[in-house]
């Protein structure tokens, strides 16, 4: 089981890391890291699903695009996401994010404004993909 997410230190903002056996899984875990900053993911149910598609040949820019599309879609629909699926076919990325509307009782963490190009890296080592960047909070 190689899927996991974690954080690394950054002075004012937060560094996020997603890991997985495939690049797509690493991106999904990076998304988990982002949304776990906003609330406790275990308290959420995947009641509504949103499709996400984009074209990006550069893997690092694809990570930033994926995370920023998720943040934009969540905020524009007043949702908070807890489950993510992503598939890559060359430069074409397609996936879904599922979650539910904000409601009373959900923990309120910190709002994530966007993913940045700082400390941005998508790497593979010993069969594990790792996707990381700093997110602005």
């Amino acid at each position, binding site marked *: 089981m190689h899927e996991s997410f974690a954080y690394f230190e950054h*002075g004012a903002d937060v560094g996020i890391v997603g890991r997985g056996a495939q690049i797509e899984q690493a991106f999904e875990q990076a998304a988990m890291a982002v949304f776990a900053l906003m609330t406790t993911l275990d308290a959420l149910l995947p009641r509504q699903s949103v499709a996400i598609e984009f074209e990006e040949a550069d893997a690092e820019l694809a990570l930033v695009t994926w995370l920023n599309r998720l943040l934009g879609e969540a905020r524009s629909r*007043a949702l908070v996401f807890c489950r993510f699926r992503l598939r890559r076919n060359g430069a074409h990325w397609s996936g879904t994010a599922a979650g539910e509307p904000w409601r009373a009782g959900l923990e309120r*963490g910190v709002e994530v404004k966007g993913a*940045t*190009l700082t400390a941005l890296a998508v790497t593979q080592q010993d069969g594990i993909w790792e996707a990381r960047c700093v997110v*602005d909070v």
Partner: protein
Amino acid sequence: MDLGRLQEINPWCYALTPLPGEARAPVRLYAGAALLRDMDAKVLEQIANVARLPGLVGAAMTMPDAHWGYGFPIGGVAAFDAEAGGIISAGGVGFDISCGIRCLRTNLDLPSLRPQLERLADQLFRTIPAGVGEEGKLKLAPAELDAVMRGGAQWALRHGYGEAADLDYIEERGCVAGAEPKSVSDLAKQRQRGEMGTLGSGNHYLEIQVVERIFDVKAAAAYGLSAGQVLLSIHCGSRGLGHQVGTDYLVTLAKAASRLGLQLPDRELACAPIKSPEGQQYLGAMNAAINIALANRQILTHLARAAFRAVLPQARLETLYDVSHNTCKAETHAVEGKPRLLYVHRKGATRAFGPGHAALPARYRDTGQPVIIGGSMGTGSWILAGNAEEQNGAFASASHGAGRAMSRHQALRKWNGRELIHELAANGILIRTRSMRGAAEEAPGAYKDVDAVAEATERAGLARRVALLRPMACVKG
């Protein structure tokens, strides 16, 4: 930060010595040795990278509250000349475009406030949507949102939010020129739908403060400040629209830089020449987001006035000043004795026009622009006055806040939000928040000493101290 590579120009300004063969513009760090020693080494790396960008005029600079950011350091100032191939950078502005502070003076003093402080804090907390996932009551259709992007605080005033006199005390009278809604993505507009008139989270706040001490009697009189007077400060920005503009253009500008063959020292500096199509599009979108922020603070001012009147019917709140600290603005500055139009990036830095500047309202023309340095929720904030450019060598810029001293995760490990709120209450500071995690992350101890930042700002000649404010109650997101 290791001071080994720094050369002292004076005790409050240091230059970064170039490495052998290093080709870049000068770097200036405004702060004393103690603040610099505590500063993250990444600040030096980031500002040295900024000094290698094309079209930079003068030096790349950091303010006394600088800390590690993304792209530019927070507290970074850099001016570019479009005619010399100068660039514009989304990372040099930040995602929370035109984040800033609106400070309002009241006709209340501490004795009249204190018996009603709890009620007022509760009323403000009920009235002001704050925190992640909280929406405002105002929902704007796309066409109306375009009008806000063009009109800023002037749009808000036309729609019944605030008072006409507010506009005199907002930078650019509440509306910057050059906003281009067509350069703002549909997703950015959708993201703003429920967010007009909301505070946000993180380091954003609405705080009731009292004037603790006056340092400059003449400037304080011009600003209408006296010891014991109650003030209200609102710290927030352009909300979801600004965040989406920032994120959209980060990738756009990274690709433009690559396409145009710009040699960037780090990809995080994603930028494009000001005159390029991508540069012009970002400029139009950024100006639209600035107007959203100005409208947002105008709406929040209106909501705060209503909350005050519900508890203290005699309360009058007048805008002292509204300053933005995440912007790129076209300004004319004297360079080697000649006026030059520059695009001044201030990321986590406040504009600080000095006495006599034509952009200032008549009331402040002799004293200079009010500069607001926001502190943490447990420490003081400061009001300073801008100095003439002969004293301020940073294109009329100054500090914007205390600046973080430790990361959010370090703060979470060190403090418990609920306990912290009780401790602050015991010290007479009321906190209202939905986020215990956010309270811990924003613990006063996670920030630098704001008094040291204000002192360094003055001693470096960037601005002069006018008044120290003490927090009484704080609504946090």
